[in-house]
């Protein structure tokens, strides 16, 4: 937008207002200029250049050479006054010195220009600053408009300090107007995002001049929406309100003092200059005798972050060790090879494994990959060991399943008389009556069952349970671990190995254990001991196990078989059993539907017999009706012959709840007796249908890992009746195979957990010599050493690289310290202490720089238009003429062609010569030093070779920027 004049009458920026008035330079400035007798004011930069060329041509060469000394003297006089003069009179000639400096600076390609600069409004300055730095400070609450403050109060987002401050009465009165802003009527109204039109806001129009802000619009709207600001009130929001909205949108946390919006003009410019002219800048810095390490750091920071100060020099010793290693690359490589082939390398690896510092990459990775099957087998064995120990744990912690307890209860209820007799005989009635004595009651029930084992067994069989289950239920009550021989050996050797445990046992038991005897009584004595020291048992077993994978698997199966078939089932069916059921789904279905068929047949016969003997009653009538309804026409024929009307039959069977006449009842009974076998089959079929519907829900529960209650009972009974397939399944153990694959993947990809790491270190410890042989092979070793060197070159220093760098420098301590001295990193007198510190180093090597502090190389970004404080008005020679070209577009001020990187020394001098005057109750710039070359972008020193020109007018960034501004102007004029 070249000029906003006349385009939006409701809103005018300050520059526009200013340009509406007559442009006249202040009288004070004119008078001052006359008095100083400065050369004719040069208005246009192009003119400046021309004029200066002429002047420079006139200057004798000698004068240019001595100009540097002169400027230093003049600056001294300018700041410190005339030497030897009374203090009060000393600064009398300050203006003359300034004038002289200005004159002298001309041969440094810097000129002093007078231009009318209009003062910018607070809002404009605020936006320009934000655009320049790309950051926004948290706006102060008092700077916000009262309306917006009201919305914040409504949302409860008033800062604490502001909420606690008592407002002045005047302020209170003013705020009370906005205390209940409009949204209160429409309390939680959320206006749709599309309803917000930012173009109605004059404040945002100002923001929109800057493309960087324009791009943020959509993201900002969400914050406006969350504050419930009605769309029609956008035009009332001030610039500071919008900054608060921007701050709220982009802050990192609620208490952040500022928010990062975008890469500001300043940082963007630095980034661009350092990227486009890296070689030139590097050469310039080298001419200034700056150490390469600072140059690299500065250029890296400028290119990546757009900053020129706060140089981060790595003080990490790795940098120096890498430099040293790279300087002796071949020797370093040979060192790696010879160390790996040396005899004590195995110890080093072992120490690394112990520290858990072994990283799976390079040859270690290749080693594991090429021994994949062996390693997986090892993992599987480790998992199996864990499983075995946990099966031992189950042996020592048996849990009687709930369904067995239910059966016991039922049995006692069915044999109440016997039970009472038993109680009276043993004088136990008192205990049974007491409610809180559950444990004793349970023991009595157990004792009763054990006394009546045979009748309990028969009872269960009568109930339709299989013999397997009946046996299991009897064993489950016993509770003593049914250990295999190997299990016994393991337990005995564990206790004998652990002196403390052994000592805690009675002498007789100790004797038994030492004789390798583990009878039932001894087992009972050691049971609590084993329960308490289970974790030790696990550790002991994994360390001392000598069984192979297959042997251990057999032992595990034996042990689990005793648990599941003889002892008790673990409370929860494990995932492995789930796998078994699901992989044998058809077998399971078949078993589930056909088991207990005999019992159902018997039931059907007894129902039939009751009907024959006692006739129909309320219990069996519904099922009979159902039976007849399925074959109604046959029944109709039969009934009509018995003299019953068809209408009555239809009436009765239309609604099954309808009462049945006594005549009809007799007929039904006769019909059922006549088709006895069909009726019995019908009953059996009904049972199976009912079970079929239960089957689906059971399978569903298993799939969802719901193994409790009835499901557990069914599963357990299924396993008991299908022992051989279960053991076959266990032998395959697909579950462990999958688990091993997962662990292997974790280890290979270096994201293993602690337990997985122990498996790895155990494996490597066992196979350390195989690993060494593998690594020492030329095929592995040469690429390995090359790769390490390559990584160091690429600055990708990981623990492995660091290890080799350390080992190498430690081995070559003297050469390293010599290198550090030769590179000026280290003082010569510190050599001895340095060498000893290298040799003693454990974790980090600390290098003290010769120059102690890290020096900053400071560059400032200089505004050629003094943009942050005032705007510039471009004009031709006659400033009062009508041909004034007015630059009212404040956004154009942060354009790249207005910026220049300056060394801080010159930057400071330029600013110290600024002259200002009061205007319109504000201070404004009226004159300042500027680089004469309008295209200068880097000013390193007074020498021409240290100054860099680049015409941003032809740069694609400027073109893009201009295009944006003209598009914006066009769209505004359309509106």
């Amino acid at each position, binding site marked *: 937008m070249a000029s906003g004049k006349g385009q939006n009458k409701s809103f005018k920026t300050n520059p526009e207002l200013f340009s509406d008035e007559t442009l006249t330079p202040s009288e004070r400035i004119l008078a001052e200029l006359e008095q100083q007798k400065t050369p004719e004011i040069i208005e246009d930069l192009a003119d400046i250049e021309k004029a200066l060329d002429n002047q420079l041509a006139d200057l004798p060469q000698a004068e240019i050479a001595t100009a540097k000394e002169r400027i230093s003297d003049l*600056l*001294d006089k300018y700041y*410190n006054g005339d030497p030897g003069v009374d203090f009060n009179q000393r600064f009398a000639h300050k203006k003359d010195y300034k004038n002289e400096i200005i004159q002298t600076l001309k041969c440094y390609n810097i000129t002093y220009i007078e231009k009318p600069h209009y003062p910018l409004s607070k809002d404009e300055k605020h936006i320009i600053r934000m655009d320049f730095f790309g950051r926004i400070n948290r706006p102060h609450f008092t700077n916000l408009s009262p309306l917006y403050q009201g919305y914040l109060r409504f949302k409860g987002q008033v800062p604490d300090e502001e909420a606690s401050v008592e407002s002045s009465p005047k302020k209170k009165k003013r705020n009370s107007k906005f205390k209940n802003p409009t949204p209160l009527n429409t309390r939680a109204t959320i206006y749709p995002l599309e309803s917000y039109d930012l173009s109605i806001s004059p404040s945002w129009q100002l923001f929109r001049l800057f493309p960087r802000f324009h791009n943020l619009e959509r993201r900002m709207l969400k914050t406006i929406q969350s504050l419930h600001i009605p769309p029609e009130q956008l035009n009332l929001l001030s610039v500071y309100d919008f900054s608060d909205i921007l701050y709220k949108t982009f802050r990192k946390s609620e208490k952040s003092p500022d928010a990062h919006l975008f890469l500001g003009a300043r940082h963007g410019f630095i980034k661009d200059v350092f990227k486009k002219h890296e070689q030139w800048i590097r050469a310039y810095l080298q001419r200034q005798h700056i150490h390469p390490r600072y140059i690299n750091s500065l250029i890296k920071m400028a290119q990546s972050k757009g900053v020129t100060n706060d140089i981060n020099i790595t003080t990490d010793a790795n940098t120096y060790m890498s430099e040293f290693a790279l300087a002796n690359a071949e020797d370093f490589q040979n060192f790696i090879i010879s160390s790996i082939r040396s005899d004590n390398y195995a110890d080093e690896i072992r120490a690394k494994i112990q520290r858990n510092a072994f990283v799976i990459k390079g040859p270690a990775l290749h080693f594991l990959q090429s021994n994949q099957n062996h390693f997986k087998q090892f993992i599987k064995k480790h998992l199996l060991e864990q499983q075995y120990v946990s099966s031992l744990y189950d042996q020592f912690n048996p849990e009687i399943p709930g369904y067995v307890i239910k059966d016991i209860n039922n049995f006692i209820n069915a044999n109440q008389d016997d039970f009472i007799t038993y109680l009276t005989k043993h004088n136990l009635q008192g205990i049974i009556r007491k409610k809180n004595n559950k444990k004793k009651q349970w023991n009595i029930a157990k004792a009763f069952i054990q006394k009546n084992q045979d009748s309990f067994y028969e009872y269960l069989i009568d109930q339709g349970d299989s013999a397997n289950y009946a046996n299991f239920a009897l064993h489950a009550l016993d509770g003593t671990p049914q250990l295999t021989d190997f299990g016994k050996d393991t337990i005995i050797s564990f206790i004998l190995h652990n002196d403390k445990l052994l000592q805690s046992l009675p002498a007789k038991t100790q004797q038994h254990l030492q004789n390798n005897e583990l009878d039932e009584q001894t087992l009972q004595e050691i049971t609590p001991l084993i329960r308490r020291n289970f974790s030790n048992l696990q550790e002991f077993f994994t360390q001392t196990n000598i069984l192979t994978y297959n042997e251990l698997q057999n032992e595990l199966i034996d042990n689990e078989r005793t648990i599941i078939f003889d002892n008790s089932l673990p409370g929860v069916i494990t995932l492995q059993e789930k796998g078994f059921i699901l992989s044998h789904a058809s077998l399971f279905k078949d078993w589930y539907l056909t088991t207990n068929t005999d019992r159902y047949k018997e039931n059907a016969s007894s129902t039939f017999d009751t009907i024959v003997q006692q006739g129909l009653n309320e219990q069996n009538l519904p099922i009979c009706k159902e039976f007849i309804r399925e074959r109604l026409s046959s029944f109709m024929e039969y009934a009509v012959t018995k003299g019953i009307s068809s209408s009555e039959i239809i009436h009765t069977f239309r609604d099954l709840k309808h009462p049945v006449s006594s005549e009809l009842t007799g007929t039904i009974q006769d019909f059922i007796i006549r088709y006895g076998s069909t009726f019995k089959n019908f009953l059996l079929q009904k049972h199976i249908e009912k079970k079929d519907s239960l089957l689906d829900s059971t399978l569903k529960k298993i799939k969802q890992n719901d193994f409790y209650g009835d499901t557990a009972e069914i599963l357990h009974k299924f396993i008991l009746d299908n022992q051989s397939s279960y053991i076959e399944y266990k032998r395959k153990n697909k579950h462990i195979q999958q688990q091993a694959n997962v662990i292997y993947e974790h280890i290979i990809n270096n994201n293993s957990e602690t337990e997985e790491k122990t498996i790895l270190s155990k494996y490597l410890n066992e196979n350390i010599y195989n690993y060494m042989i593998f690594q020492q092979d030329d095929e592995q070793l040469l690429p390995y050493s090359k790769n390490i060197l390559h990584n160091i070159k690429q600055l990708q220093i990981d623990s492995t690289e660091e290890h080799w760098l350390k080992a190498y420098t430690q081995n070559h301590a003297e050469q390293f310290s010599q290198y550090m001295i030769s590179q000026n990193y280290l003082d010569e007198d510190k050599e001895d202490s340095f060498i000893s510190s290298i040799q003693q180093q454990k974790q980090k090597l600390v290098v003290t720089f010769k120059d*102690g*502090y890290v020096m900053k190389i*400071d560059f400032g970004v200089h505004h050629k238009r003094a943009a942050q404080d005032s705007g510039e008005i471009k004009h031709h020679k006659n400033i009062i003429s009508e041909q004034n070209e007015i630059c009212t577009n404040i956004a154009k001020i942060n354009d790249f062609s207005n910026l220049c990187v300056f060394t801080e020394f010159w930057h400071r*001098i330029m600013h110290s010569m600024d002259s200002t005057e009061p205007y319109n109750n504000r201070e404004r710039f009226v004159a300042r030093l500027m680089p004469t070359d309008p295209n200068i972008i880097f000013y390193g020193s007074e020498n021409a070779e240290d100054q860099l020109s680049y015409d941003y007018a032809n740069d694609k960034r400027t073109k893009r920027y201009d295009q944006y501004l003209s598009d914006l102007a066009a769209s505004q004029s359309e509106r």
Partner: protein
Amino acid sequence: MKITYRNQADIDINSPITSTDTLQLQQILHQHHYALLPQEFINFLYLHNGMNNNGNIICGIKYHHQSDDILTINQQIKHPLHKDLIFLGFDEFDYLAYNQKHQIYQIIDKADLEVIEEYQDFASALQYILKIEDE
């Protein structure tokens, strides 16, 4: 040099430094083209490594980036004549500096770097900047 203060209890005084520290700092200042510390000020550092009287500060040899570290404030101020000047302290409006060329202690305005007072000896300059009165 002996300085006594009436309101000594109010001043934060830091423990002294050793000659190695000053020597090292002088080397750094020389390498980076700053004026060197005057002997009088070095003697003061042997007694107190900086002082702070209600935000009126005499700098010392501290950690880098600390606001009262000599090297840090000299890097921050960026005076065009830094070859001849070494800044030693500051208050709300002014800096205290030593001008090596003219061998004089100067009180320099923070805003426009204009010299507003000059002292021949360190004790008087120190009293000015710390706002303390002689006994």
